[in-house]
């Protein structure tokens, strides 16, 4: 454990440090899907666009694998967060029907 790892934030949305990710890997969460859900990174407003690849690299290094051996999580729509009101069926939309 290094102080750098404790202070380095991998997931900026959820404040998850490199150390927390490494700890979870060494607890046995050695696939990216379980790791993400256990350590709880990649679930914030950026939806993992910042941290998933970082975490995948950490996971690869810690478990002696290459990046292409690590299954990455499904990217879910929307690409960026959108206010729910944007999707509300308005009067105009009804008129078009």
């Amino acid at each position, binding site marked *: 454990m290094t102080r750098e790892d404790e202070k380095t934030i991998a997931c900026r949305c959820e404040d998850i440090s490199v150390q927390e990710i490494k700890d979870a890997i060494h607890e046995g969460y050695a696939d990216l*899907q379980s790791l993400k*859900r256990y350590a709880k990174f990649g679930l914030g407003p950026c939806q993992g666009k910042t941290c998933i690849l970082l975490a995948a690299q950490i996971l690869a290094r810690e478990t002696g694998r290459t990046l292409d051996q690590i299954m990455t999580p499904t990217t879910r729509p929307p690409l960026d967060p959108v*206010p*729910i*009101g944007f*999707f509300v069926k308005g009067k105009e939309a009804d008129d078009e029907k």
Partner: protein
Amino acid sequence: MRSSYDCIIVGGGISGLAIAYELAKRGYKDVAVLEECYLGSGSTGRCGSGIRAQFTGPDQIVLLREAEEMWVHMSDELGYDIHFKACGYLFLWDTPELVEKAKHDVEFQNKHGVMSCIVDRQEAKEICPSLNTDSFLAGQWYDKDGMAFPFDTVTGYAQAARRLGVDILTTTDVVGIEGTAAHTFTVHTTQGNIETKNVVNAAGPGSKGIAAMLGVDLPYRLDKHQIMATEPLEQFLGPMLVKNSLYYLQTHRGNVVGGTDTGDKNATDIDSTFEFLTKFASEACEIVPRLAGVKLMRQWAGYYVVSPDAHPVLGPIDEVPGFFQANGYSGHGFMMGPIVGRLLAEYVADGKPSIDIEHYNFRRFARGELLTEKAIIG
């Protein structure tokens, strides 16, 4: 993985893990859970995380009432915070007919120990201050209903089961099961073969396929149900809100999570659709207008494994001794997990569960003894 176990559980969602944990707790420790992908990767990890006892059928009411008793203590039981919260369920009814029906349902639930009640618009507004009181006539409320965090529940059960000696194998797909003359089974997996005395089928959407390997035809339909999560917000919502097929709640992490039915019966994919977003947004903002300004962060989908009477199949198969079912929940598998874990473990270990659930047996379909349930949401 060893080459033989007393009991093989197929499926690493809440059902399989809860059964494994409850078996081990009873001293029945020669158990392995086989999961084709990662734990919670099926319907458990995709679910809406709600837990309720406000059903209309007596069987579901009793089972969920017992389940809620277990959920309250589950974090202590497992030694892991699964974030259960009795946030309550508030159903909103918007026609005089639905309000009348709700009054009968409440009376029936009360008779079975679920002390739900009818609330007027003002009382509903006190429970959920964000509600638009023009969007309904009356509410139906039960404060012991709640929510828990699915992945933390999976982690809690898996860690506790492992501590008690259960083997949990991920990325281990069952490709075939053979019964033998000596009433044992050979389970063929992608990691090798296993001999076992008992097989528990807790494979969620994969249950029909697993049962077919032993010649059992589970009469299930897969329906696609979509769901979304918003950005995390300070706690503001309060209860789980339900109106017709719409439901949503706010998790302990602050995200609003919920869905509505898009009518995708007999689905063959769980892709997300734009139609879901417009239906959900319109319905959700009608009852809580301030949601319009909240950002939607992601959407996904999962399967409801729907049985002909919307009740699960629980217990042994008469024709295949040693083969047990815990599947077909029709959208209620997560909330039932703890009680199913206990009762199925009792079936396997003792031959008889502590609550009579014989009427949930697979044989009811052949006999035409279907159960009734009308309160299905999402």
